[in-house]
């Protein structure tokens, strides 16, 4: 590495980074997993889910947006942060309507996998049972907003990778929701089944139709290894879409 290399520590382990890298990128290359949901390799950082919160010199920061800097002391795998992350994941569960036992994303779902990884049992929070609209207007793709975690991965992938803008956000606060770029459903946009946007959804919200159970439960991505294990095993940073 060049003399511009940044050196810092994560949980007392020395980590190196190149200028411009985020703490999360540097951690990935050092085979240290920082839990995340809205971050996806290849997309601009967004900083929305807050699952990747770490302490930088004692101050909370989202590691997916925070640049690595020389000499910083990063706390990641502590009990305190584990609890915070578990709280956040539980918030996401109760905020939507998640019925994993009959969701076609089960086993491939990053939210579910994160729940398992963080040792979540039943959420400690009451379910909010929101009423959310389904958009099944498109012949090949549907949006089941019950499962949406508002991570904007679809929105970013559409704009940054597909060169389209099939979706955006409406409303604010608890009323915030994804919406297609039309007043009349996804079918009125140029969304296509092969869009990076569709593959970018971490949960069962933006989904391809008719392939739900193509891969049987039991043989799915997170059925055998917890989310994050490929990073921890030092493999190249995975694209969670594959």
């Amino acid at each position, binding site marked *: 590495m060049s003399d511009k290399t940044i050196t810092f520590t994560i949980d007392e382990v020395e980590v190196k980074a190149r200028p411009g890298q985020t703490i999360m990128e540097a951690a990935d290359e050092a085979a240290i997993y920082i839990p995340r949901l809205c971050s996806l390799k290849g997309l601009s*950082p*967004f*900083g*929305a*889910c*807050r*699952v990747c*919160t770490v302490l930088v010199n004692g101050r*909370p920061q*989202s590691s997916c*947006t925070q*640049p690595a800097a020389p000499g910083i002391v990063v706390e990641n795998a502590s009990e305190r942060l584990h*609890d*915070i992350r578990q*709280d*956040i994941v539980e*918030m*996401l569960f*109760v*905020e939507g309507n998640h019925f994993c036992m009959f969701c076609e994303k089960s086993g491939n779902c990053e939210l579910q996998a994160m729940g398992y990884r963080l040792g979540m049992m039943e959420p*400690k*929070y*009451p379910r*909010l*049972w929101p009423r959310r*609209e*389904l*958009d*099944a*207007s498109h012949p090949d793709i549907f949006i089941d907003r019950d499962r949406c*975690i*508002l991570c904007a991965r679809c929105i970013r992938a559409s704009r940054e990778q597909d060169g389209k*803008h099939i*979706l*955006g*956000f*409406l*409303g*604010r*606060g*608890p*009323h*915030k929701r994804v*919406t*297609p*770029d*039309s*007043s*009349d*459903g*996804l*079918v009125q946009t140029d969304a296509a089944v092969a869009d990076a946007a569709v593959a970018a959804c971490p949960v069962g919200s933006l989904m391809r139709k008719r392939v739900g159970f193509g891969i049987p439960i039991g043989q799915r991505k997170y059925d055998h290894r917890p989310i994050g294990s490929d990073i921890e095993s030092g493999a190249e940073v995975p694209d969670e879409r594959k």
Partner: protein
Amino acid sequence: MDETLKKAVEEICQARGNDAGAMMDIVRQVQARFRGVSEEAIDLIAAQCHVPRVDVAGVVSFYAFLSTASKGQVVIRLCDDVIDRMYGAVAIAEAFSHELGIEMGQTTPDGKITLEWAPCMGLSDQAPAALVNDVPVTHLSTDKARHLIQSLRRYMDPSRLVERLGDGNNAHELVGAMVMNNVRKVGPVIFAPLGPGEAMKKALAMSPAEVIRDVKTARLRGRGGAGFPTGIKWEFTRAAAGSKKYVLCNADEGEPGTFKDRVILTEQPDLLAEGMAIAGYAIGADEGILYLRAEYAYLRRFLEQVLQRRREAGLLGKDVCGKKGFNFDIRIQMGAGAYICGEETSLISSCEGTRGDPKNRPPFPAQKGYRGCPTVVNNVETFCCAARVLEKGAGWFAQLGSPGSAGTKLLSISGDCLRPGVYEVEFGIKLTEVLRMAGGQEAQAVVVGGPSGQIVSAADFERPICYDHLATGGSLMIFGPQRDVLEIVEHFLDFFIEESCGYCTPCRVGNVLMKERVARIRSGKGELADLGYLERLGQTIKTASRCGLGQTSPNPMLSTLRKFRSAYDSRLVQQAGPFQSAFDIQAALAQAKEVQGRASVLFSGERHHR
């Protein structure tokens, strides 16, 4: 296609160069003209400005003063502040509803009048208050509410609701408001007179670096809440790369219980303009933007005239004050009803014409702010202080106040006291002294710094108001012994739920969860374990939220858990043994039924499929 709409939208967009950066002005104007920004209008704006329609729809849906549905010719916004509630806002809402035959949130069938709640509109010292279109109506009573509706029915003219003009510039022909300044204590910094250009001329005789040095020597810190040293902020912005820089004045004043910026805008707009120009000179900016909250739209024409007068006097524009090469002008950017836009990066998003989401930091505004250029964002009062520092000298300013907190502070005092209003006090003053001045000695609790601040009890009344003890951006709400602190906490949580931008999980969801549990305790169904639950939840929200809103929204709950513990304890269900006595079997069964009803809906195809 509606041809009138099409033509109007095209004109509105073209008048702003079809610039999506001017989206706030565009949608505000369409809203004013057509009483809403319809789906069709959204399509037209998107086509005209070459942006995705979903982005335009995203903006319209973000701001409370904008709507896709058409609103009434007259919109009555009744202030939902906790102080207004204490002074009978609910009864007034009922009077309005009854008189109009509609519920809050509805429009009369003839499309004439819309009735809705709105968060604090900066009039807590003359509560209960409402905005009727742009016109503030203060000191409402149920009788007045009925008369108001009768007048509207008859004339459909909100300006006729102003019976008596307020004091000072509230009576100015371009303001014409019944609002009162209620300035109870004038101090040497904000409310002292200033000759035209007096502060600017002194600044322009120095180098920009010297101006910054003076602001630093004066130990001026931000008055908007966070208290960042102003000189250092200016220095960073000056040093940041880029030839184009901006000065942004934060006149969003959304923190409930704060109204001192309104009084500055009404009485000392020249002092503010001088401060902004001085900042422009110091950092090397030629453009200033005054972001004015939508609730203060009634001050806009007056402020425009102030700016115009200054241009004509050579105090704005080209070669300001005769200083060759120093050009600086100020324009007003209107907001559209969003507390979060007071957060400095949201303010920038809003000025850029997008949803008022905060931005990721770094980069900080001083590095990359408005339109990617280095930008200084300061509160109204901060700019005024800076102008005074330059006029009277850094040493003069620094000797006012206390060691860590130089100068004076404007307090907006409201609630259970005899003399609500604006007080200019020196930092370091004890809260008891402030309560005495305001006639609020009976206080049981004082909310210092608004809902995002803290709720303190008598044990803290001897502490001083300053950055290191009782810090406040200006809001001081007084609550007498008859008030229920849990009701206040719950009300503040409602405010945060509505005003969260919804970007990040802990704030978007966490506030809803906090409110649920506080409400449960308040209704007498809480149990001991709920207190630990709330404590942990509050800490998670504070730690993990993305911006200042979520990082502070648990404060009222957490501070009362400590200082008003008995308010919680006394309402808990008494537990005998380890059983959850708070578990209500009937409620659970009702819930299960509801859940089941919904589950069957899932499969009956009743849900909305598009």
